[in-house]
């Protein structure tokens, strides 16, 4: 069995979309943050009810104990319900609980997945939940399996600022709009992001690795969409890859024309 990075949902209209699954490490960090929040809330509640000490130390301790227990049990369910699948930890880590079928998260699902923490936590430190998360194909702990939920990543959606990365050099590929369109169509998204990553991190590479990497990239792109010789002659491999990345990611050339 292999772990999935994403879950595919197909709508009745025939549209497919994928939701990126959250990894166990991200979920663990979110849990640690939430645990810290619960502890802080417990301390705050203790301070808020400390006036009860004036009447009875026993009553104060009992109220503090019950309030802390109620907070720790209900925190996950309440926040995920009010914030549509997010706790404070999940918000900070850009994670969200969603229905496994892509439908709206129901209150009962939220409560069930949080009730199941009692078994996911066993025998301590979320061992059962962690193991289940590693073994389950869709990275679900027992609570998620019972409630029919998934935890997904919801990173901010924006285009990368490639303008700053590519310098202000003339891009000879920009003039060939039909070839630029073919390039955008043929290059797989994963490869495009890999090339962008290589351009961003080019200064971190050893000189020999840098030459070899950009040589391979340039060779691949040239084979994929051949440009006229007069356009690509005399361009070093690294510059060629930077030009390709610019065509792939930017909507307009520096002169303001569309690629």
């Amino acid at each position: 069995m292999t772990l999935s990075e994403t879950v595919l949902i197909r709508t009745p209209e025939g549209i497919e979309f994928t939701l990126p699954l959250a990894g166990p490490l991200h979920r663990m960090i979110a849990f640690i943050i939430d645990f810290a929040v619960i502890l802080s809330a417990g301390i705050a509640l203790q301070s808020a009810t400390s006036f009860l000490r004036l009447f009875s130390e026993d009553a104060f301790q009992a109220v503090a104990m019950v309030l802390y227990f109620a907070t720790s049990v209900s925190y996950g369910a309440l926040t995920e319900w009010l914030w549509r699948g997010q706790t404070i930890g999940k918000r900070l880590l850009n994670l969200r609980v969603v229905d496994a079928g892509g439908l709206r998260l129901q209150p009962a699902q939220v409560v069930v997945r949080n009730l199941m923490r009692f078994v996911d936590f066993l025998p301590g430190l979320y061992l059962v939940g962690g193991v289940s998360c590693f073994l389950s194909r869709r990275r679900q702990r027992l609570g998620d399996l019972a409630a029919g939920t998934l935890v997904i990543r919801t990173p901010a959606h924006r285009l990368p600022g490639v303008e700053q990365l590519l310098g202000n050099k003339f891009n000879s590929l920009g003039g060939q709009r039909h070839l630029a369109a073919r390039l955008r169509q043929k290059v797989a998204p994963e490869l495009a992001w890999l090339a962008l990553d290589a351009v961003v991190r080019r200064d971190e590479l050893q000189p020999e690795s840098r030459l070899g990497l950009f040589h391979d990239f340039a060779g691949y792109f040239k084979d994929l969409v051949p440009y006229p010789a007069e356009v690509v002659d005399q361009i070093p491999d690294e510059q060629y890859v930077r030009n390709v990345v610019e065509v792939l990611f930017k909507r307009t050339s520096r002169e303001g024309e569309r690629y």
Partner: protein
Amino acid sequence: MILDLPRVVETERPYWTALEKTLVWLESDPHRKLTIHEAERFHALYERTADSLARISGFAAEGELQRYLAWLVSRAYAEIHESRRRERFRPWRWVLFDFPQAFRRHIRAFHLAVALTIAGSAFGGFAIRYDPDAKGVLMPFDSLQITPAERVARERESQGKQLTGRKDRFSAQLMTHNTQVSFTTLALGMTFGLGTVIILFYNGVMLGAVALDYILGGQTLFLLGWLIPHGVIEIPAVLIAGQAGLAIAYGLIGWGDRRPRADRMREISRDVVMLACGVAVMLVWAGLVEAFISQYHEPILPYSLKIGFGAVEALLLTLFLSRAGKTKSGAV
């Protein structure tokens, strides 16, 4: 297909933005209802954005845009295709009506929980009868390690003063501990019921061992006066938690039910929540009674009064679980 992507983005962006705004508006209040006109416009925006997503799928370097559109489409899909009833936050309705209904819907699981506890009690009683040395293992509580006669003498002597100044804390400890045990019993249903079965049986063992120990020690009246006031609520609460755990196990295994496991679990999840709500309320009551009534014995509180109080509680609980929330048609 060669697509003029910049033009598509330029043309469609206002629709994506409009859909995003609508989604934010809808998501800010889960109970918000759309008018026919709003629903039509929302659906049109969803279809248009889904179409954009389909058109740019596979385009190089548009991963970020695809993820953005997929995120919009997935949220809109969740709003449009959700057909389950929207539940309002009405905890008292859940406890007073939905909880007893859920209890009756899964009555066979409750009967099984009772049977397991009785089997455990029989085992515990048998063990204490034929191997009194097993007391330390069967009843791992300090107050139960002495003979029943010694305990009764001690309780009479202290006249309930052993809890002076810590009654509230004791009550809170009982509530939180019992709730923790009950919710663990419920959640262990995810072990295909095995964990739930073990806890129910083990609870029965302790109960049977304690009961027979006091009966054999000639302290039956003390036992009833001590256990009944809180036990008639606490023991059923643990049984109901076990019932919920067994219902989860049934959902996982699905004997004779050909529906996918996800559908079965989806169907029982609401009932599990209702049962958990009921269990929590029952345990709060049991915790209060145990701290403030059960720990006082004769001569402070006559046994007859305590047993009578417990009998009334048992009667009310039985009536509540069997009658509350019944519809006129008699269903559930």
